[in-house]
């Protein structure tokens, strides 16, 4: 019998452990937050390079890209990195030997990633708000938030695919996750419309959930598109998540079985 209480306790333990780690690596956290904020500002500043009436909107366009990429990449990285880290510390054998369903464990990982990703993004948002005078009169912020929330689901799914890599090969796994992240960054139109990409690359953009997230959030903030008109995109993102999350969980289970068969979890002893 699986008791709901103990499963909840287990997921909570994963989240609490990650927050404890943040406390111990606080110096790094501050450095990351600082770098993220500065990086977003430098990108926003590109919008001011050309004089003219559209400056404010250009800054906003770029800032939205920086903010969203910040959120989605942190989400993806945290989910995929969690297994990597446990492998690195050697705790993975202990976590996987515990009588807890893998879904529960991964739920803890993902819940933490969402909360942490939001916190990191809010830091950047505050920096942008203090640094630039961006025109928000037309913006439909609730619409943007709905899309953002929906987009975290497919990104968690992608993160789960990232998380299986370290189980297949310790070092190459981490390398593969970086490459996946790089491709998403390139094709999703974070700082430019995807129409500027070479033609042969554009079909890849259609596969990235980030592409739809970006264009919908820009629609909401720059053109004030209503929640109703953004709903199809939000539902589409949720539908993509409904495929990607179970597929990611399934792939994780397959990868774990492979690791148990071939001895990939172990470090030494």
């Amino acid at each position: 019998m699986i008791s709901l209480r103990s499963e909840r306790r287990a997921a909570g333990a994963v989240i609490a452990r990650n927050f404890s780690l943040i406390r111990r690596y606080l110096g790094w956290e501050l450095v990351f937050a600082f770098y993220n904020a500065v990086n977003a500002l430098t990108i926003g500043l590109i919008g001011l390079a050309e004089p003219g009436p559209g400056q404010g909107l250009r800054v906003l366009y770029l800032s939205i890209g920086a903010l969203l990429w910040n959120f989605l990449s942190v989400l993806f990285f945290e989910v995929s990195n969690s297994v990597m880290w446990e492998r690195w510390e050697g705790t993975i054998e202990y976590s996987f030997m515990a009588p807890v369903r893998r879904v529960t464990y991964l739920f803890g990982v993902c819940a933490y990633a969402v909360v942490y990703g939001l916190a990191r993004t809010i830091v950047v948002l505050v920096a942008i708000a203090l640094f630039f005078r961006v025109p928000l009169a037309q913006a439909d912020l609730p619409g943007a938030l709905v899309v953002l929330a929906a987009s975290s689901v497919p990104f968690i799914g992608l993160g789960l695919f990232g998380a299986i890599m370290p189980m297949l090969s310790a070092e190459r796994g981490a390398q593969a996750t970086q490459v996946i992240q790089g491709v998403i960054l390139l094709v999703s139109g974070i700082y430019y419309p995807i129409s500027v990409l070479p033609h042969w690359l554009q079909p890849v953009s259609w596969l990235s959930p980030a592409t739809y997230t970006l264009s919908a959030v820009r629609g909401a903030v720059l053109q004030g598109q209503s929640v109703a008109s953004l709903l199809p995109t939000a539902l589409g993102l949720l539908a993509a998540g409904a495929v990607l999350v179970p597929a990611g969980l399934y792939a994780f289970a397959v990868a774990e079985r492979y690791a148990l068969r071939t001895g990939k979890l172990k470090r030494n002893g």
Partner: protein
Amino acid sequence: MYAIECREVRKEFRPEGESPWKRRGAKVRALDGISFTVQDGECFGILGPNGSGKSTLIRLISTLLVPDEGDVLVFGHDVRSAPMQVRRLIHRVSVEASFFKKLSAQENLDYASGLYGLERGEARARAREILMRLGLPKEKVGAPLEEMSRGQQQKVAIARALLTSPTLLLLDEPTTGLDPRSRRDVQEFIEEVRAVHSASIVLSTHDMQEAERLCDRVAIIRGGRFIALDTPANLAVRFGNGEGLEAAFLNLTGEEPNLDEEEIDG
């Protein structure tokens, strides 16, 4: 019911560092047809040279590896088809302490007990009790693991295992690297755990005295096979000319093991 039942267990590995797309290297045979049973409440020792398959065997029982062939049952549950049931009954201490090194003992144990669904306050009290019993200085409980000595880390690892009151405790060289006093603390504690909680124990070790002291029976493993299995006293008589377990071990694991399979029982 047996605590452990292993039948003709085999496990091979492809050498580490070999990538999937490179030509496949020769396989390493880590376990080559191991069969034995451990009684409920028994302390079962595994002695063997480096690389003989001790840790691999313990990982198979802990559901951290899947056997290529053969069956491993823990209290009747198959590690392959019912890993969750097995996981509820076991815990393991490995030779590597394996913790989040920046986190304190307390934080690491909070995480571990949470994964097992234990109530936090109770688990903390119990952890403290075990750590005190093992002689870990009180002020160390809140310090990052990386600031602890190996022996101290090992004590935390033992606390992590015992926190969940396992019915079967798998100890992979739990006292390697401990000073004589710490080693005795741990050994006494293992005896106490056996007496109080009537746990079954599998213990791999390179310490002959430890095996003699703690184990009801000892298996000697070499090249992934059990080459002898008996009580420590009998092993000493049968293979050590009565000069103790160490003599038996050296004779059995020497270059020329002039032994037949018939000499193995258990």
